[in-house]
């Protein structure tokens, strides 16, 4: 599931961009260090392959729906984690730019959700472990299933966490988790089956292809990237969780527990968001940039409706009129600028 910009706050988007950019720089160095010229065209063409494979669907019996290859896991199997992470990132970048599928601010989140889990957790920790050295057919199938399911569950949970921390969607944490995880269990099963089927086909049709094109340096199992990545995420989440704790001592439990009253959840959410807005104000490149927002977001709107500054028919009508007019004016000025820019 690709996140859109409209649901990601600058703080969350920026943080995930920083994490992802770091991972990408590191993967790029690893690929460069491998010093294998064949890798460049191989990565590019496999990225194109993933794109194409996503356009071809097969029908899932009984359900009437259809499925296709996601691709993260098979890339890790073919290219090793580092090159696979870069290929996944490039696929997502092109999707966001050309298909409007996932936003630019959210691209960091999307690359992390869909790239980190399959390349640095599911493949090195689960796939290679379950598949074993001999890679019998049954083990290869089991490995693909387990790795795909776990990878997608982690990715989906990432989407939920990032959406929640952004504080733009009103969806309670629990509900969102209960929607996302089962959907992605189904998607994970499909992904596992497809990955296993394709790997099995290649293993039968041309066994040497599975070991082809991947330099040894990039397939070597190393847990360091996993630990570093997890450490970074843990540090970020830890930081966020502690902001949680500072406003509401039992905020996390509240969000996790059954949503009994909407007020409380709204309050918790505002707590997180206010804190993130605070951080954003501190990290903004211009002082006073997030000032207004902090003031607004700091108000616990759920618990105290009166505190909303504009419960007044007069001002809201003016807001409506003004908004509409501003839109019209923006369009007119936009067209006017056209002539200006043409002159320039």
């Amino acid at each position: 599931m690709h996140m859109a910009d409209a649901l990601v706050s600058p703080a969350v988007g920026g943080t995930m961009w920083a994490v992802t950019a770091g991972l990408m720089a590191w993967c790029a160095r690893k690929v460069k260090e491998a010093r294998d010229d064949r890798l460049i065209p191989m990565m590019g063409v496999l990225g194109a392959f993933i794109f194409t494979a996503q356009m071809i669907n097969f029908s899932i019996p009984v359900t009437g729906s259809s499925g296709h290859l996601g691709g993260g896991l098979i890339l890790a199997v073919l290219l090793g984690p580092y090159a696979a992470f870069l290929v996944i990132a490039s696929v997502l970048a092109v999707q966001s730019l050309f298909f409007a599928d996932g936003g630019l601010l959210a691209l960091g989140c999307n690359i992390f959700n869909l790239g980190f889990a399959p390349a640095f957790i599911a493949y090195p920790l689960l796939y290679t472990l379950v598949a074993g050295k001999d890679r019998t057919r049954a083990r290869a199938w089991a490995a693909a299933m387990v790795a795909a399911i776990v990878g997608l569950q982690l990715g989906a949970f990432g989407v939920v966490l990032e959406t929640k921390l952004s504080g733009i969607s009103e969806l309670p944490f629990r509900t969102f988790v209960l929607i996302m995880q089962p959907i992605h269990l189904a998607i994970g099963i499909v992904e596992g089956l497809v990955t296993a089927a394709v790997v099995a086909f290649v293993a039968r049709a041309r066994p040497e292809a599975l070991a082809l094109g991947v330099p040894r340096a990039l397939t070597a199992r190393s847990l360091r990237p996993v630990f570093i990545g997890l450490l970074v995420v843990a540090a970020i989440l830890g930081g966020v969780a502690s902001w949680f704790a500072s406003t509401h001592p039992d905020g996390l439990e509240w969000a996790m527990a059954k949503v009994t009253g909407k007020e409380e959840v709204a309050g918790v959410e505002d707590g997180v968001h206010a804190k993130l807005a605070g951080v954003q104000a501190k990290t903004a490149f211009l002082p006073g940039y997030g000032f207004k927002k902090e003031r607004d977001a700091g108000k616990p709107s759920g618990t105290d409706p009166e505190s909303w500054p504009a419960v007044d028919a007069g001002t809201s009508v003016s807001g409506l009129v003004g908004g509409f007019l501003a839109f019209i004016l923006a369009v007119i000025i936009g067209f006017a600028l056209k002539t200006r820019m043409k002159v320039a």
Partner: protein
Amino acid sequence: MMSGGAANFLEVGRMDELARLDSPVHRLDARAQAITTIVFILVVMSFPRYAVSALMPLFVYPVALIAAGNLPVGVLLRKLAVAAPFALFVGIFNPLLDHHVVTRVGSFPVTGGWLSFFSIMVRFLLTVSAALILVSCTGINRLCAGMERMGMPRVFAIQILFLYRYFFVVGDEGLRMKRSVEIRCAGSRKLGFRVYGHLIGQLLLRAMDRAQRIYRAMVARGFDGEIRLMEPTRAGWREAVFVGGWTALFLATRIWNVADGLGGWLTRSGL
């Protein structure tokens, strides 16, 4: 998870065609446009969650660029429509979950949920159109070269360029294979899992063969492991004015609520 890929297949090429247009916007350095787009998206997303009318003045940016860049509105709108379901899906829960009335229009109560839902949709329109305009005005080659000069790893820039170039080749191959399967099934059966696995496996083998051939062709033409990107454009005063002017405008709309001021002035003088 990508939806409706096949339907969009040819539109990808369309975007690159747009990037080859010649207009004042297209002549700008790609870095200037990339930076402005990022600033724009950050400013849009920094608005408080109930902001709707305050976001309206920001439409000036996409509209101005579409107009100045001679971009076809229809193509961009189609892409927006394809991408809309996710924002709709997550946003639509807001009106169902947030019931407290934050404001009234006449006697009609407006809940926070509806306000934040509209806010999400407006943000969606603004951010997605900005991203589409960025590609339509720069194109993948200039954009990648520009991003590389701003610090994106070269391996990654090259990866995107290769992916993009071979997308058309491998994509065509995949669609041909799919079509041939469909013809043999006489349209009566949908693609089953077994056939699908073989089809994708076969496509993968062909793609890998192609990568080998490309590599040999590159070596034959003197490839030494280093890819040189095209001659970069220079950034001058035009770029500085573009980035500076828009940034100032975005920040101004962020600090002062133009729409409210306008509405207040109008309703007060009107009533």
